[in-house]
């Protein structure tokens, strides 16, 4: 099989890889680039655990071919913290105990960050709709939404 040579940017760094045509961006992030924050919950776009942004747009990386990322800008959960300094969203998720097993958390973080970049002052309903594609099997959504709303308030104040 002819592998495809892809040059792209991940979290601001130039990256190159070889992929099969049918391989997903999620596969390459996890298996080749060792960025294992994005998780494969379903592989069919339903759970959001694989959320990343592609040119700033929130997408499911399980439904993006690795080949499609060529020349684009990919951002993953690994790029959210600034070194050892956690992002406000990460701090708030911890503070509000908005995770249990943590499988959904990277996707929630990427999705919530995209929300607050677009809508710094969302209503709770807006936040719930925005995150409707991020399923959590353990925590339930109230703590997650509380953490996101609290982070939004703090980020507006900062």
């Amino acid at each position, binding site marked *: 099989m*002819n592998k*495809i040579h892809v040059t792209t940017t991940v979290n601001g760094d130039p990256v190159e890889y070889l992929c099969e*045509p*049918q391989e*997903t961006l999620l596969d390459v992030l996890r298996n080749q680039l060792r960025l294992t924050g994005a998780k494969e919950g379903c*592989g*069919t*776009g*339903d759970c*959001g655990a694989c*959320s990343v942004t*592609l040119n700033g*747009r*929130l*997408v*499911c990386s399980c*439904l*993006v*071919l690795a*080949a*499609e990322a*060529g020349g684009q800008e990919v951002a993953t959960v690994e790029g959210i913290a600034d070194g050892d300094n956690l992002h406000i969203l990460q701090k708030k998720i911890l503070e509000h105990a908005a995770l249990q097993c943590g499988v959904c958390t990277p996707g929630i973080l990427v*999705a919530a960050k*995209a*929300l607050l970049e677009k809508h710094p002052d969302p209503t709770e309903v807006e936040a719930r*709709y*925005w*995150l*409707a*594609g*991020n399923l959590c099997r353990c925590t339930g959504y109230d703590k997650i939404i509380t953490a996101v709303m609290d982070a939004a308030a703090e980020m507006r104040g900062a």
Partner: protein
Amino acid sequence: MQYAAPKSVQDAVELLAGEAGVAHVLAGGTDVLVQMKMGMVEPDLLVDIKHITRLKDITAEAGGFRIGAAVSGAELGEHAGVGTLWPGVVEAVELIGSTQVQGRATMAGNLCNASPAGDSVPAMAAAGAVARIAGPDGTRDCLVADIPTAPGRTSLGNGEFITSIFLPARPENASDAYLRFIPRTEMDIAVASAAVSLEFDTEGKCSAATVILGAVGPTILNVNADCLLGTTLDDAALEALAAACSATAIPIDDKRGTAEFRKDVVGVLAKRAAKIAQTRAGVTS
């Protein structure tokens, strides 16, 4: 399988027409990549149309808008002009999937996937939308309503693909709306849906009505909505519309809803969508 990302419509047509095996356009991939994973389709070639720059454009044309086949739902939703002219079409597109799915899904993909429950299809059809198709024999235009022919089937020929969808101009005192029924409040497939596009005269009487149903037949269904004409959408006219919708629907029975329920609820959706379209048109009864 091969992946190709042509830079021009011509190159895309040649790739699609030249493939001896199964070739699929890759737009947002939110249907075709899922179907590949489930083994429902096994393409020999995927032609990614997102590198053809003009397919990413929304352009004003003849009082309406031409929407490129690679424009995502999120991009369409952010365009103020289209949402003002055809709010029902934009609300239908925005119902597709989650924020993540919106970042990728296209209207043309929703249409060409040809699911009877595709949300944007009834709304586009009610708007009189026209698909522009490129193919080995050149370019042609076709009503969106004539693209799906059966579940998973379209009228597109070998090597043909949609390059844009045109939403026409509309007169004053006119608007549209789309409603669907789903068991959840987000992220679900329509059990029944209705798109309504209405025009009113200066006295507030309905002068043109197009009503299209989704998910209650193998393709979208056109309802004869003459019962609304000359009325201000009084209760009798709306009851007649609901009855016409229920009579037109030919739904299946499945775990998501019985045929009887679908026939009933599709009439309720049409009535409510008609009232929303009337309010949007700025007409008060």
